[in-house]
C-alpha cells in the first residue's frame, strides 16, 4: 500500500491524543481542544480518523454503545515520533532565526 508520508495537522492532533491511551471520537475532540485550543468539526475529525485507520496508524477497539474507541498502533506511534522529530527540527530553526533578528 502506498502512503503519503506527510501527516495532516488533524492527523497529528489525533495521534497525539491517542498517544495518551484509547479514546472515542468525542473524547478525542475534547482532548484536542484542551491541548491545542483547536475545535475539530465532526466531519473533519472522522475524515482524519478514516484516513488514519486506513493507513494502519490507529485501530478500533471494543465498541462502547454507539461509540468506538481507537488506539494508537505501533506504526502510528512510529509515524507520530517521526513527525514530532520533523516539527522539532523546524521549531528549533525558527527559534534560532527569531532570536537572531
Amino acid at each position, binding site marked *: 500500500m502506498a502512503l503519503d508520508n506527510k501527516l495532516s495537522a488533524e492527523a497529528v492532533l489525533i495521534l497525539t491524543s491517542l498517544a495518551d491511551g484509547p479514546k472515542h471520537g468525542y473524547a478525542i475532540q475534547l482532548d484536542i481542544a484542551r491541548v491545542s485550543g483547536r475545535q475539530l468539526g465532526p*466531519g473533519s475529525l472522522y475524515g482524519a480518523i*478514516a484516513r488514519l485507520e*486506513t493507513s494502519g496508524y490507529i485501530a478500533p477497539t471494543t465498541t462502547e454503545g454507539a461509540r468506538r474507541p481507537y488506539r494508537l498502533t505501533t506504526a502510528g506511534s512510529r509515524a507520530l515520533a517521526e513527525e514530532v522529530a520533523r516539527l522539532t527540527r523546524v521549531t528549533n530553526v525558527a527559534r534560532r532565526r527569531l532570536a537572531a533578528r
Partner: protein
Amino acid sequence: MRARPLLRLYPREWRERYGDELEALVGPGPLTLPVALDLLRGAVDAHLHPELATPALVAAGGGTIPLVPRTPRMRAGVLLLAVLFGLLAFGLAQPNPVLPIILPIGAHASSASIAQARYPTLHIRASIEKNGIAAVFLARGPQSAVVVSTRAATLGWMDAGGGASIGTAATDEHPMTFGVTSGANNENQWITISGTVIAPVASVALLYPDGSREVLPLHDGAFLWFETRPSPFLTPLQGSAFGRLPSEIVASDAAGNEFARLPLHLGN
C-alpha cells in the same frame, strides 16, 4: 438543521462504518452553521475518497490513500464544493418570498435529473478568488455541449452577491450564455444562492429536444417542468442546439393546472 439529513449525504458504505459514531458525536440537537458546513465538507470528502469506508480492504493492499489532499487545486476543489453545498443547503432552508418556486426546484432536481441527462462527460472547473468563489461545469451531452457557471461573491455575508449563468456551445470556440439569475442585495440574497441550483437544473433541460418537458415532482402531486420551446431571443445557428433553450419554468398542480411560470430571461 439537524445532523441526520446531512449524514445521509455520506456514501452508504461510509455511513455503515462511521455513521453511528458520527451521529453519537454530534448528538440529536440542532447544528450550528460551522458544524453543518463541516459535515458537508466531510460528505464531499467521503465521496471523493470512497476507499476510506473500507479500511480493512485498503489495509490488505486494495488501494492507495493520500493522508492529505495532494494538490492545492484538489484542496481548493474540495473546499469549493463544500462551500457551494453549504450555501445551497442554507439558502434552501430560508423562506424566499420573492421567488418561492426556486426552492422546490433545488430540493427535487439534483441527482435524479442529472442522471437522466445521461451526460457522457462532465468536467468541473472551479476557482476560489480573493473576493468570491466560482465554478464552471462543462457537460458534453448527446446533442450539445453545455456550460454552466456559477459565482458567488463573498464581500461580506450579508452583502453576498453574485449570480448564475448558463450557456450552450455548438463548439467550444463559440460559447453563448444567457443569465438565469443575477444580482442580489440584503433582502433577496437567497435568490442568488438559489441560482446555483437553477443553473445546473436548467442545463438538464438544454439536453432535451424541442417541446419536451422535464417533469420534476413537487409536493402534493404538483410538478414542475421546463418548457424547451425555441427561444424568441436567440437565432439558432445552423446545426447548433441554440434553438432549444428553455424559455420558461412552469409549475403545475396535480391536475395539470399551472400555478406559477418563471421566465428565463436571456442576456448576460
